[in-house]
């Protein structure tokens, strides 16, 4: 009797299994990179790309304009207001407003356009991870300036117009020749730096004021080279990312693009490749 009891207890208490693998050591670094990527894609995809498309629209004849709208804005229209204001409209709702300051071609050196993103993001799930970069710019609108600095180089600056202080200070360098219609299908290099600020989820809402802010600072240690083929965005380049929260310790990680294979993330001296 005693033996059976003892044996049963031993057998039962030995039900012990591996629950979770240790996994990648750079998981946190990858999470930081992913956040940078979604934030920068938001600026690049929603705003910068649209501005170049609008530039092509402005400088096309009526047939060309229709073709650009059909291809790139099938559910929207580009409309001109006055001499130097252009809007991408979704029905009667403005999405992006571009003020060209009387210089209607981005291809001319010295041209400086001001862009306001007028999409209201307040209805986006407030604390979903994807929404963080959006909130980084939340202030009803965000203002960027795109300036042709010569030699097919463009500076893209968004300077702390939001509650929080997110900013971009990028330079896009296109090969010599005409500037592209769609930057997605263009080879170019991007350099510069910037930061994204995120409210900690403990905050009730923006209206209540931001109490805790996570700041993600970054700079391109090596310029990012964009593929001509849009299937994967960046061919090479290196980003140094530093995250901090209200004076808490900084976390620094490095992300280096490894072509179409993936991204090499370095955290605490350990480098791992994350495959796409």
């Amino acid at each position, binding site marked *: 009797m005693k033996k059976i009891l003892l044996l049963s207890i031993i057998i039962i208490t030995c039900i012990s299994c591996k629950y979770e693998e*240790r996994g990648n050591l750079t998981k946190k670094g990858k999470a930081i990179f992913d956040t940078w990527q979604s934030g920068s894609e938001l600026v690049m995809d929603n705003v910068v790309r649209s501005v170049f498309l609008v530039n092509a629209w402005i400088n096309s004849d009526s047939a060309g304009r229709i073709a650009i709208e059909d291809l790139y804005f099938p559910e929207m229209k580009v409309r001109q207001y006055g001499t130097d204001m252009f809007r991408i409209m979704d029905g009667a709702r403005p999405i992006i407003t571009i003020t060209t300051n009387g210089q209607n071609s981005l291809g001319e050196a010295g041209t400086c356009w001001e862009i306001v993103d007028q999409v209201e993001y307040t209805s986006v799930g407030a604390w979903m991870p994807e929404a963080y970069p959006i909130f980084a710019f939340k202030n009803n609108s965000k203002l960027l300036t795109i300036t042709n600095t010569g030699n097919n180089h463009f500076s893209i600056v968004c300077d702390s117009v939001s509650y929080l202080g997110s900013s971009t200070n990028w330079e896009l360098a296109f090969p010599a020749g005409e500037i592209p219609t769609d930057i997605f299908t263009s080879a170019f290099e991007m350099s510069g730096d910037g930061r994204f600020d995120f409210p900690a989820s403990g905050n009730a809402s923006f209206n209540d004021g931001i109490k805790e802010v996570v700041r993600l600072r970054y700079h391109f240690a090596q310029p990012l080279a964009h593929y001509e083929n849009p299937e994967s965005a960046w061919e090479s380049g290196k980003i140094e990312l530093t*995250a901090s929260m209200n004076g808490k310790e900084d976390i620094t990680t490095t992300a280096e693009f490894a072509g179409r294979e993936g991204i090499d993330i370095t955290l605490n001296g350990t480098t791992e490749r994350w495959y796409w």
Partner: protein
Amino acid sequence: MKRLSILICIVCVVFVSKAQTTEDTWKQHSRHELTLGFSDPLLQSFLYGVHWNWPSFLWQNDISIPENWFTKDCYADRYGMVPPITLSYRYRLAKWFWIGGSVSYYGVYHTYRDRFSNEVVARTNMNLINISPTLHFSWLNRKYVSLYSGLSGGYSYYFSKIYSTQEEKILPLAQSYWNFQVTAIGIKAGKKWFGFAEAGIGTQSFITAGFGYRFNEND
């Protein structure tokens, strides 16, 4: 629930009294019974959140949320589990009717490690103890086999230690609940030593199986 329990009791009593065809020499049978049973933890998990995989929703950090970048990045290395183990004692008042009590225990244990250093950060556990008086109705009694149903209801005590990555410390938690167990059908086979299996519903389990020992005072 109370009404349902009473109804089941009445049905069992009526059925059992009819099933006992003879006022045979039941007092010759052993009147004491001690059992040890092992159960599935499914229902307990649902009712009390004592999940074998509870770290996935109670503990783990979602590091895709920026503020969580500053907490420890840990992983649940191993878990150990003791499925519900029940020790029961029953006393036979009539050939078909037993009263008794049971104590059961269910526990889940985890070890957490820092993902980077791989050092153990915390060892945590979740435990549930049920104490219940029981009623058993043996509605078919043969020499080596008997079929039965049963009822029990009592008190559960739940206590745990959960690791909080936000606070970087172990948080204790203790609660108590009422519990119940309805055994729809059970079978016992054997003589002095016997095996049993039963199916039912309640805080203990759906399925329980184990072994037991019958004895008399003068054994």
